[in-house]
């Protein structure tokens, strides 16, 4: 599964952050962060809360505007151009901690909205696409239900399918299992592992270290708005280089 990043000819860079900073008032959430994600790479970002990992991932599709530095996605530097931003957002799918499904639309309508309005697909084509991805996340039978009628795990799988219906080049996951009851975490992680196997480029903010170990090509550890450590999962989990990384792992793997 790690063929792309380990092949001899380097895969093209799809996301690049150069010295990106982000302030909330006087608080600096990101402090000159630089990183590079190549096509097909799976990057897992971890770190204590408030370390800036959500802000980082949200800068990639500009839900959070960076105050300094450069964000380049698919060769396009992101600026204030709204039209260009919309075009980039169709290439970058996002899954949220709180699912953010549209409660007034059925599952199928949730999935069809983006394809029909943004990609201008016709209704039958959008419906076929939606059903295909609902099968992929294994809940085609819920197509006509409303989000409130589904369990948390099912809702998050719908949210993943909704993003996939845009047929993005990159998928961002912002703590996708943090709002779930424990027994529902694995059904969402299973879907994510399957997605990783298809070669999708993924950036995942998560505390699920088992998932990270299984899927990640690159581990990024953040603290205080900075990237403290970037390494392979083997190295990060067995001999983390930074003291803060060691401490974090000790706390998170204690139980």
């Amino acid at each position, binding site marked *: 599964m790690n063929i792309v990043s380990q092949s001899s000819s380097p895969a093209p860079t799809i996301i690049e952050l150069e010295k990106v900073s982000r302030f909330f008032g006087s608080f600096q959430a990101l402090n000159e962060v630089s990183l590079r994600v190549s096509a097909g790479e799976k990057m897992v970002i971890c770190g204590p809360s408030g370390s800036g990992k959500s802000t980082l991932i949200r800068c990639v599709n500009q839900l959070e505007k960076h105050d300094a530095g450069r964000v380049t996605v698919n060769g396009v530097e992101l600026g204030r151009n709204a039209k260009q931003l919309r075009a980039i957002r169709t290439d970058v799918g996002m899954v*949220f901690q709180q699912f953010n499904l549209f*409660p*007034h639309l059925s599952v199928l309508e949730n999935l069809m909205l983006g394809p029909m309005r943004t990609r201008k697909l016709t209704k039958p084509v959008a419906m076929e696409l939606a059903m295909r991805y609902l099968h992929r996340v294994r809940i085609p039978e819920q197509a006509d239900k409303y989000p409130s009628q589904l369990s948390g795990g099912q809702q998050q799988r719908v949210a993943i399918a909704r*993003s996939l219906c845009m047929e993005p080049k990159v998928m961002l996951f912002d703590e996708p299992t943090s709002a779930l009851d424990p027994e529902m975490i694995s059904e969402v992680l299973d879907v994510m592992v399957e997605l990783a196997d298809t070669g999708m480029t993924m950036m995942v903010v998560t505390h699920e270290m088992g998932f990270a170990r299984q899927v990640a090509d690159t581990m990024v550890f953040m603290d205080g708005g900075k990237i403290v450590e970037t390494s392979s999962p083997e190295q990060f989990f067995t001999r983390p280089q930074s003291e803060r990384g060691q401490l974090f792992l000790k706390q998170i793997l204690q139980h």
Partner: protein
Amino acid sequence: MGHIIRRQRLWILLASSVLLAGCASNLQWYVVSPATESGRANLLFLAGGLKYTLLLSCTAIVISVVVGLLVALPGLSKNPLWRGVNRVYVEVVRAVPILVLILWVYYGLPIVMGLAVSVFWAGVIALALSDSAFEAEIFRAGIQSIDRGQLEASDSLGLGYFDRMRYVVLPQAIRRVLPPLGNQLVYMLKMSSLVSVIGMEELTRRANELVTSQYRPLEIYTVLIIEYLLLILLVSAGVRWLERRLARRDER
């Protein structure tokens, strides 16, 4: 729930009929009695205003909802200039008493614009204008109450401003503002009585006219009150039906 409402409605009707019966000795109900021919004619004359009250209110409501929404949207902009437009409109229009606005539109607008406004359209414009300022605030509150995650999800799907409003924000916001919006509709229906001052032949004007020929103000105005009461109970029931219908699809 519906059971209680029905009981409430029954109670209101009972109370009003007791009121009418109890005072019968001092009152001359024959002017509006369905038992006599002249009474029937008077009642028909009074009810004849219903058409214009309804037509006036409905037209004004439709216009005010559209204008209210159009005024609410700039109030949510990040641009202070747009927000200023919203603020000025709401503050100015909201400050003018409806009666004054009706007089100003009917007598003033022809001078300003150089074109005569019919009584009907003067009433519609004044009511719609006045109401739109209140509705703009209701819509703004409703739209602001939508969770930020909904906007972020729309953004991440590449939806533009209008698609986001049309398909994600407004359907949820309108459901939430239905109770205060219903309130506003009832208020507007009542305020349509003020258009009688410029000669609109609606319910109140008809009652006034009948009073001048029959000299029985108490009886006739009591009938007028009952007319408005029935009309508004009907509107309330309609709004509640709509609320239930939308709620069935149900939120979190």
